[in-house]
């Protein structure tokens, strides 16, 4: 037998309560109206001792009730010897939202730390002795969506299972109702990443100057340094690239590899701000469609490549290719960007509030513990509760014993 909450055995100090009651409760002696006391008081000694244990059987029953209740609180679990341990299937929801790009106290980027934590958690589950207990990492910009995906995955798993959410837990990123999709018998853990610094992922393009590069040498340079650019970007910004998710590329760079008149574009470049970048790009695309009559050929340039010096300079690099519309597009975008100033928001205003630790704790559920010989982590404390209930009934019966019964007992003793 093992105990899920062995600290509950501290409750055994409560055994002292019934002992003290039986030791000190002199006034609880039953009263018997008797014809005369002259023969009782003349007998010496007759008075009971003031402090001594009274009604030992009743005391033993009461002590047993306390012990049974404490044992139940300690959550006993009967195990089958020799059976392998089962670890929970674990789905790790990794918050990849923009707020995770902020730094921790030690200067590291929150997203990087979160990634490491998520990998470690997934690795723990993966090292389980039970091969049927896998783990996955679910990256998600919206934590609630990630939880839903994780819950769907857990629904396909057997045995103990749990969801671990790694996030900075901005207010509004996750609400209690989002956790309702998690299976009732699955554990829920919240791993907060204490980001607090300014966003470090894209400071350079945010406040840089628009710079347009053109020509074949730029395209070649982009192609050669693509891998290094990705690595550098991931390392420095915590932005992780997914081949299917190209939106992040928009956040950092627009490339027109062969724009002919880059000097003109460079001359007309203006500062832009990251929060408005996507809107600007959307406006640019709409404007392209309007100018080109709905041609999609220019749209491809917006999905073009990265460059290693994107973040090494304090400027947004815009490349244009040789296609006829590219120069126009670059020029148009530069014109649009230069025509309007995007609002520059202070970092403090953009920094979100995070959920209170007590809230996160209230959302957590105990993870099923892997116990050899058990398919689930539930305790067998109910048997001790049942025992305590039975003992309570016995105690009530013994407490209501009439004096007449004592008389019968005494008669039996005399016989």
């Amino acid at each position: 037998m093992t105990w899920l909450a062995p600290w509950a055995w501290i409750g055994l100090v409560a055994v002292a309560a019934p002992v003290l009651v039986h030791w000190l409760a002199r006034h609880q002696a039953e009263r018997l109206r008797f014809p005369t006391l002259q023969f009782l008081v003349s007998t010496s000694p007759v008075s009971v001792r003031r402090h001594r244990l009274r009604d030992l059987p009743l005391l033993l029953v009461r002590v047993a009730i306390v012990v049974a209740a404490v044992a139940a609180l300690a959550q006993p679990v009967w195990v089958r010897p020799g059976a392998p341990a089962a670890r929970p299937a674990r789905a790790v929801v990794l918050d990849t939202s923009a707020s995770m790009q902020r730094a921790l106290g030690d200067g590291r980027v929150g997203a990087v730390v979160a990634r490491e934590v998520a990998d470690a958690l997934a690795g723990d589950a993966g090292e389980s002795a039970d091969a049927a207990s896998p783990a996955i990492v679910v990256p998600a910009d919206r934590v609630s969506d990630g939880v839903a995906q994780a819950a769907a995955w857990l629904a396909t798993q057997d045995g103990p299972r749990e969801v671990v959410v790694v996030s900075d837990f901005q207010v509004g990123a996750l609400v209690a109702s989002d956790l309702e999709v998690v299976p009732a018998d699955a554990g829920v853990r919240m791993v907060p990443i204490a980001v607090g610094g300014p966003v470090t992922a894209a400071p350079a393009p945010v406040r840089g100057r628009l710079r347009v590069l053109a020509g074949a040498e730029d395209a070649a340079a982009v192609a050669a340094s693509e891998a290094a650019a990705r690595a550098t970007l991931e390392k420095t910004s915590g932005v992780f690239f997914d081949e299917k998710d190209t939106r992040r590329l928009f956040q950092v760079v627009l490339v027109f590899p062969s724009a002919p008149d880059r000097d003109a574009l460079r001359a007309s470049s203006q500062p832009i701000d990251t929060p408005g970048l996507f809107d600007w790009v959307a406006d640019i695309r709409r404007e392209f469609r309007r100018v080109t009559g709905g041609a999609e050929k220019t749209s491809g340039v917006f999905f073009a490549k990265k460059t290693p010096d994107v973040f090494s300079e304090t400027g947004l690099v815009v490349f244009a290719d040789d296609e006829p519309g590219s120069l126009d597009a670059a020029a148009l975008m530069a014109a649009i960007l230069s025509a309007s100033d995007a609002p520059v928001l202070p970092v403090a205003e953009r920094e979100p509030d995070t959920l209170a630790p007590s809230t996160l704790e209230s959302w957590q559920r105990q993870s099923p513990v892997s116990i050899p010989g058990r398919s689930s982590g539930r305790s067998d404390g109910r048997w001790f509760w049942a025992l305590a209930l039975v003992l309570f009934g016995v105690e009530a019966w013994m407490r209501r014993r009439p004096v007449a019964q004592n008389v019968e007992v005494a008669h039996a003793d005399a016989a």
Partner: protein
Amino acid sequence: MITPSLSPALVASVDDLEVVARLIVEGMRSGQHRSPFHGFSNEFSQYRAYRPGDDLKYLDWKVLARTDRLYTRQFRETTNMSAMICLDSSGSMAYPETGFSKFRYASMMAAALAHLIVMQGDAVGLMTMQGGRLVYVPARGGRGHLRTVLAQIDRLEPAREWEPSIVIPRAADLLKRRGLVCVISDFYDAPDQTRVELRRANRRGHDVALLQVVSKEEVDLPFAGDLEFEDLETGSRVLIDPRRARAGYRQSIAEFLEGWRTGARRDGFDYALMTTDEAPSEALRGFLLRRGATR
């Protein structure tokens, strides 16, 4: 004439017994009572032929001398025995408070005695105390009076007040002739004074009978576990471990009961110890048989 104090079973069980009066009873009834006052209060009625077995003191020797015939004188009965029952109604008699109490037992005994005495033509009265006041029913005969006595017994409730030093001398005083003073009690109250008053009544010529009623639990103290004993009369309390006190208690109460038994024998009283677990009919039968055997 059946009342709650006199159950049919009790009457049926003792109806074949006769109350045997003692020497110093004034009246005589059908040869069963020997009067200490020959010729007093007796009125000559007639002669009848002597029959073997007749008391020779009633043989008329003058007629024998004159006629050489044996005649026995017969008298008209004018007196009988008067009995006064003193019933203890103190609080101690209320034990046990649930079930068959000592007072109930004593009441049945008193009723049975009254019934027997009246049925054989004698007079019976009642003296007790209730609410601090004496309750007195004069000694008379007749079924109507018996009903009065029984009704009075039935109305009694055990209370704290019962002073034998008042009840017993008043009972002896109010018996106009020498008769029977029967005290039914546990004799816990003022035992020394009670003995003095009983001897005084005996010296006045009354026959004295004592029925001491106790319960089995009083004698054995069979309780277990700590108990707070409360005196039914004084209300005082004491916390006792009966197991430890049992031996000493039994010795004390045994000495108390033996003291009453030997004291009654020494003073010439009839005495019977009755416990409430004993069948009332058997207890009364035993008492009357012992009384008859000693007279």
